[in-house]
C-alpha cells in the first residue's frame, strides 16, 4: 500500500472543458444536506409539534446568535444569516473529510470523495465571496462614502494609506483561503501519514484533534468575516 496524497482535488468526470472534482461532489452533498435541514427546520417552526432533534438545532443556532451579538451588538440580526451560513458550511465541509470512506473509496482510479474545504478552489471561492460581501455590506451601510477609504485624494499620505487598504483587501482573500485550506489539508495529510505508520487505533486522538480543528477554523472564518464587516460598516471620520 502506497501513501496516496494529492494536493489538488482530482476530477471524477468532465462536462466538456469543466472538470467536476471530488471536493465539489462533497461540497454539493453538504450544501444539499444543509438545505434539506434548513427547509425541514422552517417547516418544523411553522407546525406545532415537538421534536428533540430540532430543539437541539435551535439551541446551537441560538448560542451562535448570542456569539454574533457579542461581536456586533446592534446589527446581529442583519449579519447573522451570512455568518451562520459560512460557519455551518465550512464546519460540515471540513468534517465531511473525516467520515469513513472519504479518500479511500476509489472510482476510475481517483478517490470519489474528498473533504470539501481540502481543495484550494473551494476555499478561494469562499474567501472571494466573503470579501465581496464585506464590500457590499460596507457600501449598503455607508453609501459612496465607503469607497473613500480606498481612493482618498485629499493629500498624498491619505492616498498612500488608501492604496494600502486596497492591497489589504486582496491580502485578506489570500489569508482566508490559505488558512482554511492549509489547516484542513494538513489535517488530512497528518491522518494519512499516521494511518500509514500505525494501522490501528493510533489515528483516533488525531481524529478528535481534526474535529476540533474543523470547528475552530469554521469559527475563525466566520468570526473574521463578522469582524471585517463590523469594521467596514462603521464610518471612520
Amino acid at each position, binding site marked *: 500500500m502506497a501513501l496516496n*496524497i494529492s*494536493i489538488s482535488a482530482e476530477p471524477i468526470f468532465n462536462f466538456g472543458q469543466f472538470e467536476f472534482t471530488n471536493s465539489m461532489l462533497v461540497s454539493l452533498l453538504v450544501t444539499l444536506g444543509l438545505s434539506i435541514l434548513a427547509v425541514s427546520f422552517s417547516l418544523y417552526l411553522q407546525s406545532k409539534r415537538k421534536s428533540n432533534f430540532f430543539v437541539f438545532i435551535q439551541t446551537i443556532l441560538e448560542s451562535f446568535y448570542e456569539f454574533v451579538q457579542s461581536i456586533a451588538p446592534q446589527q446581529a440580526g442583519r449579519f447573522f444569516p451570512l455568518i451562520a451560513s459560512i460557519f455551518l458550511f465550512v464546519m460540515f465541509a471540513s468534517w465531511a473529510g473525516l467520515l469513513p470512506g472519504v479518500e479511500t473509496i476509489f472510482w476510475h482510479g481517483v478517490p470519489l470523495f474528498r473533504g470539501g474545504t481540502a481543495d484550494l478552489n473551494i476555499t478561494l471561492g469562499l474567501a472571494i465571496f466573503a470579501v465581496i460581501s464585506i464590500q457590499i455590506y460596507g457600501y449598503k451601510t455607508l453609501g459612496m462614502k465607503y469607497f473613500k477609504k480606498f481612493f482618498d485624494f485629499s493629500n498624498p499620505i491619505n492616498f498612500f494609506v488608501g492604496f494600502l487598504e486596497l492591497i489589504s483587501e486582496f491580502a485578506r482573500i489570500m489569508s482566508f483561503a*490559505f*488558512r482554511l485550506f*492549509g489547516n484542513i489539508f494538513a489535517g488530512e495529510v497528518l491522518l494519512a501519514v499516521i494511518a500509514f505508520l500505525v494501522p490501528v487505533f493510533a489515528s483516533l486522538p488525531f481524529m478528535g484533534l481534526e474535529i476540533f480543528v474543523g470547528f475552530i477554523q469554521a469559527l*475563525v472564518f466566520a*468570526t473574521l468575516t463578522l469582524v471585517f464587516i463590523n469594521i467596514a460598516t462603521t464610518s471612520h471620520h
Partner: protein
Amino acid sequence: MSDSNVIVGATIAIGSIAPALAIGLIVSKALEAIGRNPEAAAKVQTVMILGVAFAEAIAIYSLVIALILKFV
C-alpha cells in the same frame, strides 16, 4: 534523502519558529488577563482564539509551501 526533502523540512521548520513564539506570547498574556479578571474569561478567550488563528496562519503559509514543494 535528496536535497529537496531537506529544503521541504527546512521550510516548515524555520517557518514555524516565529508563529510558535507568537502563539506562546498570546496565550501567556491571555492567561495573565484571565488571572487578573476571571469574569472576562469568555471575552478574552474569543479574542485569544482569533489572535492565535492569525499567528497560526503564518505557520500554515509555510506548511502550504512545504506541501507544494513536496507533492507538486
